[in-house]
């Protein structure tokens, strides 16, 4: 079964977020990566943009399907995991670490109330 790290928060769209001071790191969950199968493209077109919670920030595409990516928390996209552009398989190999997708600069953490903890996320998958 998919392991769900306890230290992260989750959206119903299967993104995870990790907060460290005013930086939020965002990726997709193992459940999402396994459902999509082999990821072949990760595209983010929102660098330097201010996004509101659940806005689209990019697309992720596998051999089987394409899926939109949404920010689980409001903030400004300040960094894209460049390594993913040439190695999209990192998402399948290690979605919670080297498969991270973007980093956001955030103003506060009140959006986190809208997200799920690991136990709540486990229940919806």
């Amino acid at each position: 079964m998919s392991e769900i790290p306890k230290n992260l928060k989750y959206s119903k769209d299967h993104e995870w977020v990790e907060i460290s001071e005013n930086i939020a790191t965002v990726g997709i969950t193992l459940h999402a990566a396994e459902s999509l199968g082999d990821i072949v493209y990760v595209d983010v077109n929102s660098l330097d943009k201010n996004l509101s919670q659940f806005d689209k920030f990019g697309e992720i595409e596998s051999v089987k399907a394409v899926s939109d990516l949404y920010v689980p928390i409001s903030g400004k996209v300040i960094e894209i995991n460049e390594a993913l552009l040439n190695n999209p398989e990192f998402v399948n190999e290690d979605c919670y670490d080297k498969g991270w997708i973007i980093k956001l600069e955030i103003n506060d953490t009140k959006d986190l109330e809208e997200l799920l903890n690991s136990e709540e996320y486990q229940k919806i998958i």
Partner: protein
Amino acid sequence: MKKTILHSSHKKLEAKLVDFAGWEMPINYPAGIIKESTFVRESCGMFDVSHMGRVEIFGENAKNFIEKILPIDVNSLNTSSAKYTLLIDEKKQILDDLIIYKISEDKFLLVINASNTEEDLDWIQKINNDVSINNITPDTSMIAIQGPRALDKINLLSNNAITDLGRYKYKEINLQGYSIFVARTGYTGEDGVEIICNNKDAEKIWNILLENDVEACGLGARDLLRIEAGLHLYGHEINKNSNPIDIGLGRLLESKSKNYINYDYIKSDEIQKGKESLVGLVILDRGIAREGNEIYIDNKIIGNITSGTHSPRINSAIAIGMLEKNYNNIENTVKIKVREKFLEAKIVKLPFYRRKRK
């Protein structure tokens, strides 16, 4: 949903199962589509294809009946040989693409698509008045073993029973005590075989193959491999109203007999004057073009994508598309509308991948 005899074997291997033409089939195993496709290109993989229809046609008029319903030159099909062909009804609609095996002068085996089995059988039965038709699909299982090491593996397990088996030939052999039908056919662009066995032996044979490092591969990998090899899939590159010549299958219309119900059609100007062509497309931008996406030149729609995927061999997205004939120029650049984006693509000759012959 219908299940093949190997269903529990797939579950044991933690396959992801999906509905395929009413059958619950593995789309991929934990290795994933890309790795599975690479097993087949580099070594040897196997696919449960028991959902495909297997129909015997027999009786003293069987040969005459085959000549009547298929565009093959039945006299050039020898016993122990197979041919790829099309089933076209009396309204010129293509019902299916299939492989026919000649078992004897009065017995043939058709292997047809799972999604078309019922309709094919209905039509064949409607036309029939003097042969016996036996659907052996429920009693038998079918496994495709494909890849550069496939023949060696089968030889190893059968005391070299297929060292002399030519392409599109078949044989009844003994594999570790199990009697199987082995045909040197496939749908991946690699060398390999397709075997048919009794249901009671299927799981044992599957396990013997697993123990001999034949990797289980799902229908996702099979689709990727057939697209790379430029092979048609019914419902995508072949449809009821397809012109066989437009889709690059004119070579299959070999009948020399007026006994064939579509003899006049296959010799007609109507069929010769096709309007479209099937082409290969290599996507130059990032993203996969998928079935139904429109193909443009200079803001004009000139065709549609019939199949698309990502190819680890080509290292980019590839697609098969149907275009207006006059735009089929190799190296022509087109745009493909994928959701709100336009992806640039180059027209290439099919197949994308051709194996190295020994």
